[in-house]
């Protein structure tokens, strides 16, 4: 019996997301990432004597969006607390956070694993401020500190220990990231640290219900690291239990090179944060109207979008998931659909195909995002309609699409078709002439076909298409070919 079935992992994630507010959580400094070091600072975020924090109201609106989107209860009156610890990039010697009364609590999100739904509980979501950045590799003897990030608002999303595999952990993290991006409150960039994750992991013999002792893996900064680190920790704990020993609580570091988890030095983890209510700030008061207003302003989220694409547009699940995986792509798709003169299911599916293949290909090849793609949604809608009408065939359509991209959106599909003479040949008598010509040139193949080698039909179609320079309507070609060959 291997470890993966002998023990059941129990996982909870703590996700820290930097908020895309214009200014910091408690002062008016900019949150711009690209500014020179220590330029977005003031006496407040540098912790000078006598300064006081003033709450950025935008942060409250942002966290309420997340709380409502994840079905949380919203606390009418919540308070901030100080989390006290010494570190050079923590300018005040404490972090302003929320402790006993987080503003959002008891929420849930539904994730799907291979088509099966599972609910992951959200314990709490609270507001806090980020610390600065210590730069250790600038010089051998000195550590430099950039305080631009100090005071940038974060929200921390704490899940219930409802996650039982790395697959679920990954899906949950991806879904939370989607929600954050859909809400426009976080950029979802794990590599740059604007989205970070800690994982609480314990294991228990499969079939039992009592929770094992957990460990906490800190600072996981990519999807891969989250999966690998949890995997490594499950293995580490399994070996401990297999040897008949007990797992002890530790804060763990993850070494991505060796794919191992190791406990932090006891000194590093022996923090007593001495939380107490932040006396410099007043209650955060949220009222019904504010919650209603935010509810109404909430954009359609990822899971709702998928449902809509399936039920309203008749898209396959796969298409719906691929299209909605990126909000800007989904928005583009929605615009294409609304530009269709008749939003029929087959046209919508065609639009989806174009986006999943050609659009994503161009975005990947050119490393651009969809806002930089100059093809306008109505142009793509027109292209889909023209192909559907039989005016041009699919290959000609690709040519039109590439030209639309190259021309930077300055040309209309019809112009390109005329310019390049791409209109499909649908005249039966002309096609019949070509078919006749091909058949008479290929007597041997015709004989073989008549003797039952029907797969040769493709050979004839290919020849006809070539002869017509790709413009013959394949449907008509097929019809005429079958007629002629059965004569």
């Amino acid at each position, binding site marked *: 019996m291997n470890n993966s079935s002998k023990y059941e992992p129990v996982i909870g994630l703590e996700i820290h997301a930097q908020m895309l507010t214009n200014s910091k959580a408690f002062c008016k400094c900019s949150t711009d990432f690209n500014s020179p070091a220590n330029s977005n600072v003031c006496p407040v975020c540098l912790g000078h004597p006598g300064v006081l924090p*003033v709450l950025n109201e935008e942060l409250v609106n942002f966290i309420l969006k997340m709380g409502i989107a994840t079905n949380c209860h919203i606390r009418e009156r919540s308070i901030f607390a100080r989390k006290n610890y010494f570190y050079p990039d923590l300018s005040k010697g404490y972090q302003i956070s929320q402790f006993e009364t987080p503003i959002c609590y008891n929420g849930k999100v539904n994730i799907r694993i291979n088509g099966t739904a599972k609910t992951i509980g959200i314990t709490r979501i609270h507001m806090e401020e980020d610390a600065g950045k210590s730069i250790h590799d600038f010089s051998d003897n000195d550590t430099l500190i950039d305080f631009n990030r100090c005071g940038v608002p974060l929200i921390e999303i704490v899940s219930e220990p409802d996650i039982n595999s790395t697959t679920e952990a990954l899906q949950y993290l991806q879904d939370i990231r989607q929600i954050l991006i859909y809400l426009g409150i976080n950029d979802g960039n794990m590599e740059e640290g604007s989205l970070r994750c800690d994982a609480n992991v314990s294991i228990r013999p499969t079939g039992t219900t009592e929770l094992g002792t957990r460990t906490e893996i800190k600072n996981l900064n990519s999807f891969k690291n989250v999966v690998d680190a949890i995997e490594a920790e499950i293995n580490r704990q399994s070996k401990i239990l297999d040897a008949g020993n007990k797992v002890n609580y530790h804060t763990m570091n993850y070494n991505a090179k060796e794919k191992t988890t190791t406990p932090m030095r006891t000194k590093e983890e022996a923090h007593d944060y001495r939380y107490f209510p932040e*006396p410099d700030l007043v209650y955060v008061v949220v009222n019904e109207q504010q919650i209603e207003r935010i509810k109404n302003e909430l954009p359609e989220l990822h899971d709702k979008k998928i449902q809509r694409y399936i039920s309203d547009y008749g898209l396959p699940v796969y298409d719906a998931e691929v299209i909605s995986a990126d909000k800007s792509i989904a928005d583009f798709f929605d615009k294409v659909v609304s530009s269709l003169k008749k939003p029929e299911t087959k046209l919508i599916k065609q639009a989806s195909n174009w986006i999943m293949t050609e659009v994503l290909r161009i975005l990947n090849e050119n490393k651009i995002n969809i806002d930089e793609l100059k093809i306008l949604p109505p142009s793509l809608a027109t292209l889909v309609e023209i192909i559907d009408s039989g005016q041009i065939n699919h290959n000609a359509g690709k040519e039109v699409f590439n030209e639309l991209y190259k021309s930077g959106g300055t040309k209309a599909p019809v112009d390109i078709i005329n310019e390049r003479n791409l209109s499909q040949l649908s005249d039966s008598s002309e096609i019949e002439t070509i078919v006749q010509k091909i058949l008479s040139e290929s007597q041997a193949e015709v004989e073989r076909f008549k003797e039952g080698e029907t797969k040769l039909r493709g050979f004839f179609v290919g020849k006809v298409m070539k002869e017509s320079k790709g413009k013959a309507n394949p449907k008509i070609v097929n019809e005429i070919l079958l007629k002629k060959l059965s004569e």
Partner: protein
Amino acid sequence: MQIPAGFYQVKKDIESHKYSLRDIMNEYLSRIESNKDLNAFTCVFEDVTSRADEVNEKILNGSSGKLAGLICSVKDVISIKGKPLTCSSGILSDFKALYSATAVERLENEDAIIIGKVNCDEFAMGSSNENSFHGPVLNPIDKTRVPGGSSGGSAVSVAADLCMISLGSETGGSIRQPASYCGITGLKVSYGRISRFGLTAFASSFDSIGVFGKEISDIASVLEVIAGYDENDSTSSEIPVDRYCSILEEDINTETFTIGIVDEYFSEGLNPEIKAGLNSLIEKLRAAGVKIKSVSLPYSKYVIQTYYILTSAEASSNLARYDGVRYGLREVNSTNLEEMYVNTRSEGFGTEVKRRIMLGTYVLSSGYYDAYYRKAQKVRRLIKSDFDRVFHEVDYILSPTTPTTAFKLKEKIDDPLSMYLNDIYTASINLAGIPAISIPAGYDSNGLPYGVQVIGKKFDESGLFKMHKLISNTINSN
């Protein structure tokens, strides 16, 4: 040169060309110089005479602000842009502030001139002004005695006529007690009445800026300017600021209010001479028609414990920022980060500050939080509700400001508990966040002054000005 009482008279005299504001400024500068032994000032600003000329000009051409002619000192825990801000601590001995406190900005906008920074206990922790990197301040009435603390320099700068008013700060009596020991008036306002922005934090939920003066009209004028909501302080109140100066001009009908006398405050531990003096004052007030009522504040016996647990807890966190990383003292002979922290803070902080940081760290530690911090928070609410209840029965509470008159230098410095008992009548006010004023009430047989404290309802500073007028008149009518 004689300087008339009240800055408004100075302004009038300048208008009628009797003298210039520079004359007044020079007089103060020479007094500060000749009273250096008091050690009240930690620094005198260089630009004050030219500033006096500017304001003088404005007075003459009629464009001056509301406080033109006023010359004041500022306790060295309050930030003034570009000026030293030492908090009387070694850890900030070379620090200059990057911005001005809201109260300072408002004073300067109305043409008050700040002549310099004044000494205090380190980070405002102390009751004798002996815990200072700059050395102790002496009481001008008896130089062998303390002026009280922590705003000792503020009290002395006014008591010794080295300026007209002083901005001090309070966490548990740091204005009222030195005012009492130095024979002047000290006003502690309601929590939230004056912005704390720029006041170096000791205990954030207690701290407030306040005013010392000899002339109550000066204090009223200053308060009108510096009080009121400030967007930089979330805990400042939006309740409109009263016209305190006009209240001082109103007649007082002694039959319209009731004064409460707290039984617990007149028991053991109160100097008999102060007790007798205050009892005689109470009798005079009664004779003048004031209703006097005996009231009880049963939770007052827990005031000192509650006060020291909560203020030390907040202080331990507020003082964490002095770590040698960004500004202030840094002990460079350290081989690693932890050593740098330990060496910097061991070197930079004085004994009393360290004591409170340790006490505060202890009461917030996991395992002790519930027993100390959380419990003290509950008692704080009970102490507040004591006052709420009493203020349903009476309009003001009258009490001694301090249990004794000024004590000798070094007398209590090694006995922190006895030092802490100095706050016994004052600290409850900060726990409750209500206003109180110490008014000069008399002298003991050694010629040392003592004050009477009047406590008001939250945001009823107006009432305290009224009571100041009544009590001063009553005392002076002898």
